[in-house]
């Protein structure tokens, strides 16, 4: 919401400076987003007359001017084609900063002729983009006077952010009211602000035929004015509208805009010549259309309130007028509509049509239902004053909802909620200045002014507390929040408890461990291109209104995001990377916290010690999966490796780690078809670890004493069918004598000559841990026999 300081002062009788006004606005919750003050930058420029204009001796396109700015004649070299003797313009003396061209003027010789200043164009003064010639001022412009003063550019423009609750401040008068309440001056009565004796206007003849049939428009007030002349609006109105960025169109249109910006009261003016019959506010009929003033045609439905005559829809009620019944320069008879529209209905219609307008933004926040007659009177007054004509009586159909809301208020709640002690008298005075009615009692009864829809709620008055906090806010925002003294929160009693849940602590632990293992943490979008989601089993959730088609499907896996990231990095020359992310997968049943790791390209770069580069493989992924599971506290020795169950893994080079029936992680090489989909050329291994599937980490430790006896190791080599899972052999050996065997490690795998076609040799190192007595050769032979027997059950044979 923009307005000028001068405009504000039409309503606020104050001597406050611009800085005081902006500081107060910020203090009371009307946040100043910007102040444009052209006067400071343009202050040095003065009105000057061109006395003589001669051709420059050295340049055809330049002239040598003699200029008077009130004192002695000044020589200026000028390139403007319109510069001529006798004209008046705007002069900048040497030393002046020219904002539009970002230079400071100096005395300079231009093609050998001295120039002592500049006659300026509008662009050089940042008044417009006009740069075809210098500014031409009327003959009566006073030579030597400051240009900004004469042109009325001294009025700074203030831009405030109005929060959605403060419809009353979507007009200059509401802002003036708030500032007056904050002690910055006196709010002038409305008639005084408009410099009229009374709000009433002379009226003759019956009011127009209007009525409302729709609860979406509880009140439809209107009057007609006949015999108007719709020319340009006066300079004062145009200047105000231009200052806030609203383009003047014609007097009738400008009046409706001015009243809306000045009083927060949207109006609509119809050209009666375009209407057939009376106007009615009703629900649209499905299939009806209207071409709005913005030139677009809107299809309406039966939930939307429209204003229509016997033949056509002329207005999307409270949102935008129709093009056909708008005013033009030939308009002579008008109908001024001042209606009240239901805010919820306006909001729904506006959302459905995705149509925003200044009127909608006011009506959906709830304009003052008590201001219909005054708003219509002011508008009629302006029409009569600026366009002439004769006003009719007012037709009033329906009743605006003006029943006053009342709030029970305990003044002690100001201290109790806001922590500021404000004297009761001051509380009452603040509320009264804001227009609230104050009846002291126990509690106080506060009557809310009709323009404050945000305070209290008529419907919920059964709750004793409803609205009380609103009143507290009104008191403290005007009193000033600076008065709040910081007060420490009391410390909780007892032993400090962990403030992270076990799941959060687990995430942190896994995150830092993974980074410590050389992975860079990425944060990628939660939404994916649908095709990416499809490649990973499809998205359970998609967005109805994605920001783009590429960000439409909620990810069922973290891998597509990381694969896309790998592709972007590969395109930047980084084919080898180790990335991870911790975040949610969005599945139909719930959101699942997940760790994903991606290893792409080389595990080892070529190196003088290790030789040629080594590509990542599935075992890298397995190692990372197990390392992460170990740090997460999963019992990694009890995990089994199952075949991959999802399609995005290489069917022969991936696995899933399961604890009983619970899947803890998938790992392995990403399926070549997926790599093709992401246009990745390098090998990619990955892990997805399902954090919410992990068993809870156990705290505390069992009692333990290191064994007194030395462990010993024995090696065995078995020839097994190559289809045998190595893990099966290790498990068989481990289980051969659970009391003695403390560990089995597979350390060699060999296929080739002497083993037999279809076989491999697996070598294991078995660690035996004696408990009570040193093992004899016989003991060792016995356990060795058990190991061999267990292996033979799997089809293995001991190598000779």
């Amino acid at each position, binding site marked *: 919401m923009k307005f000028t300081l001068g405009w504000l002062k039409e309503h606020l009788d104050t001597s406050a400076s611009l800085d005081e006004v902006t500081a107060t606005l910020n203090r009371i919750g009307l946040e100043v987003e910007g102040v444009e003050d052209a006067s400071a930058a343009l202050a040095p420029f003065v009105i000057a007359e061109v006395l003589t204009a001669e051709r420059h001796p050295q340049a055809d396109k330049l002239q040598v001017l003699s200029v008077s700015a009130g004192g002695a004649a000044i020589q200026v070299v000028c390139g403007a084609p319109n510069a001529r003797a006798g004209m008046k313009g705007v002069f900048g003396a040497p030393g002046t900063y020219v904002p539009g061209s970002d230079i400071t003027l100096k005395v300079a010789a231009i093609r050998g002729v001295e120039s002592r200043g500049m006659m300026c164009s509008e662009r050089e003064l940042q008044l417009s983009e006009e740069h075809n010639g210098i500014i031409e001022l009327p003959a009566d412009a006073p030579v030597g006077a400051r240009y900004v003063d004469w042109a009325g550019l001294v009025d700074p423009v203030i831009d405030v952010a109005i929060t959605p609750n403060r419809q009353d401040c979507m007009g200059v008068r509401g802002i003036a009211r708030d500032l007056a309440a904050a002690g910055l001056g006196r709010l002038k009565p409305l008639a005084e602000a408009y410099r009229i004796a009374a709000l009433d206007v002379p009226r003759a003849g019956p009011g127009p035929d209007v009525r409302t049939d729709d609860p979406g428009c509880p009140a439809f007030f209107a009057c007609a004015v006949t015999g108007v002349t719709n020319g340009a609006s006066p300079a004062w109105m145009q200047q105000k509208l231009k200052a806030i960025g609203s383009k003047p169109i014609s007097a009738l249109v400008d009046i409706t805009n001015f009243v809306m910006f000045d009083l927060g009261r949207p109006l609509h003016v119809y050209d009666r010549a375009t209407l057939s019959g009376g106007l009615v506010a009703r629900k649209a009929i499905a299939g009806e259309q209207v071409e709005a003033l913005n030139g677009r045609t809107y299809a309406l439905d039966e939930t939307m309130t429209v204003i229509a005559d016997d033949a056509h829809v002329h207005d999307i009620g409270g949102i935008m007028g129709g093009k056909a019944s708008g005013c033009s320069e030939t308009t002579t008879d008008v109908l001024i509509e001042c209606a009240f529209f239901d805010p919820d209905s306006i909001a729904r219609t506006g959302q459905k049509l995705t149509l925003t307008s200044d009127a909608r933004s006011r009506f959906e926040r709830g304009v003052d239902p008590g201001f219909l007659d005054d708003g219509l009177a002011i508008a009629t007054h302006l029409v009569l004053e600026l366009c002439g004509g004769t006003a009719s009586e007012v037709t009033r159909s329906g009743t605006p909802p003006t029943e006053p809301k009342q709030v029970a208020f305990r003044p002690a709640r100001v201290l109790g909620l806001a922590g500021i002690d404000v004297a009761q008298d001051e509380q009452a005075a603040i509320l009264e200045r804001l227009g609230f009615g104050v009846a002291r009692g126990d509690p106080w009864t506060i009557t809310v002014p009709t323009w404050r829809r945000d305070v209290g709620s008529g419907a919920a008055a059964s709750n004793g507390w409803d609205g009380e*906090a609103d009143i507290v806010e009104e008191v403290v*925002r005007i009193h000033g929040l600076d008065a709040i003294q910081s007060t420490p*929160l009391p410390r909780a009693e007892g032993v400090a408890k962990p403030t992270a849940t076990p799941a959060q602590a687990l995430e942190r632990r896994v995150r830092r461990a993974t980074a410590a293992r050389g992975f860079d943490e990425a944060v990628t979008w939660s939404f994916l291109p649908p095709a990416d989601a499809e490649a990973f089993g499809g998205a359970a959730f998609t967005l109805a209104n994605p920001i783009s088609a590429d960000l439409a499907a909620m990810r069922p896996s973290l891998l597509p995001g990381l694969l896309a990231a790998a592709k972007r990095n590969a395109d930047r020359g980084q084919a080898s990377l180790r990335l991870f992310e911790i975040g949610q997968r969005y599945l139909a049943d719930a959101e699942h916290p997940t760790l994903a790791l991606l290893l792409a390209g080389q595990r080892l770069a070529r190196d003088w010690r290790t030789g040629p580069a080594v590509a990542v493989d599935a075992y890298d992924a397995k190692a990372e999966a197990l390392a992460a599971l170990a740090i997460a506290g999963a019992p990694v020795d009890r995990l089994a490796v199952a075949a991959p169950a999802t399609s995005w893994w290489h069917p022969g080079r991936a696995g899933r780690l399961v604890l009983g029936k619970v899947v803890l992680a998938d790992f392995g090489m990403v399926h070549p078809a997926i790599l093709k989909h992401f246009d990745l050329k390098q090998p990619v291994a990955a892990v997805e670890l399902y954090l919410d599937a992990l068993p809870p980490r156990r705290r505390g430790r069992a009692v333990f004493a290191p064994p007194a006896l030395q462990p010993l190791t024995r090696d065995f080599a078995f020839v097994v069918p190559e289809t045998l899972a190595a893990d099966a052999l290790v498990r068989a050996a481990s289980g051969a004598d659970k009391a003695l065997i403390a560990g089995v490690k597979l350390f060699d795998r060999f296929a080739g000559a002497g083993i037999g076609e279809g076989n491999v040799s697996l070598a294991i190192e078995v660690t035996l841990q004696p408990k009570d007595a040193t093992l004899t050769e016989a003991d060792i032979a016995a356990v060795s026999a058990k190991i061999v027997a267990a292996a033979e059950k799997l089809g293995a044979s001991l190598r000779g």
Partner: protein
Amino acid sequence: MVGCIVAAAFTEPVLSFCGGGGYQPAAMTDTDTLQADILGSIAAAATPEALEAVRVAAMGKSGSVTALLKTLGGMDPAARADAGPRFNGLREAVSAALAARKAALDAAALEARLASERQDMTLPVALPAAGTIHPISQVMDELAEIFADLGFAVASGPEIETDWHNFTALNIPESHPARAMHDTFYVAQSPPEGKLVLRTHTSPVQVRTMLTQAPPIRIIAPGRVYRSDSDATHTPMFHQIEGLVIDRGITLAHLKWTLETFVKAFFEVDDVTLRLRPSYFPFTEPSVEVDVGCSWAGGKLTIGGSDSWMEILGSGMVHPRVIAACGLDPDEWQGFAFGTGVDRLAMLKYGMTDLRAFFDADLRWLKHYGFSAFDVPTLSAGVGA
């Protein structure tokens, strides 16, 4: 060892050497001469093998010193008293010389071996890959640490949220214009009983916490949030942190202290001034926006002082309707809530300029702005890295 002959002993034995270290036989008539001779041989031994030959010739089973010592047994007491100390002195001197020479030869051999083992220590070594923690995670950990000290637990909630939790319970009815403040993403697969949205703020976690937990409540809720917005300072996904305190007698004065404590700790600056401005959020009443004093001297942002103001968070007293919607009695329980952008806090503290880069996973950016796994924010070591 080959060809070593030891002569027979007389009263004073005569020794002769041959082979081994290349010694010439020499006739000696007393222990001093013998000692000088042996010590000379020891000094002349240039290899461990030569030294061993000298040792065997002198101290071996048939060595000259051994032979001499054996003669002591046959001497009469007087002669033994005279010869014993001399012979033993000889033995000790030879032993000591052998040991010293052995140590010197070993040292020289080691030195020679080490010299031959020299490597070029300027050759490069491949370091294990150093991973990084994303700035968002780092800042979330910092925030959790700071608020843990104030007794705030970390709470969380779903990102695909019901319209009721995200809006209605927070006093934002369907037609409320505040919904236009949130450019909401709607989920196509919404069940008939209620629309699903991507949460537009972390505030629904307030609701979920109040619904499930009895007051007093002190939580922070960091997490991903979503709005349909995209430019250099807005991305459709970003991160917020929500704070909530519900108790008896909590006021804006406690809020101000909490935020001051948080801002000082987070930016590691003592001189922090906060400015509270009245504002509007549907779920708080009174609502305040909080500016932090800062300076742009030299074009660089410094938190502290009051030269200039920067808006950093929104907050207020939890609206009685929100408290009631969560099943609590607003006449008994009250408190404050606040929310701010985690990504923005990270940018202010660590100087990133483009929010979009946070989500691009550009390795160069991650390596530059990421944190070591061991930069764990703790109160004792500091929450800045």
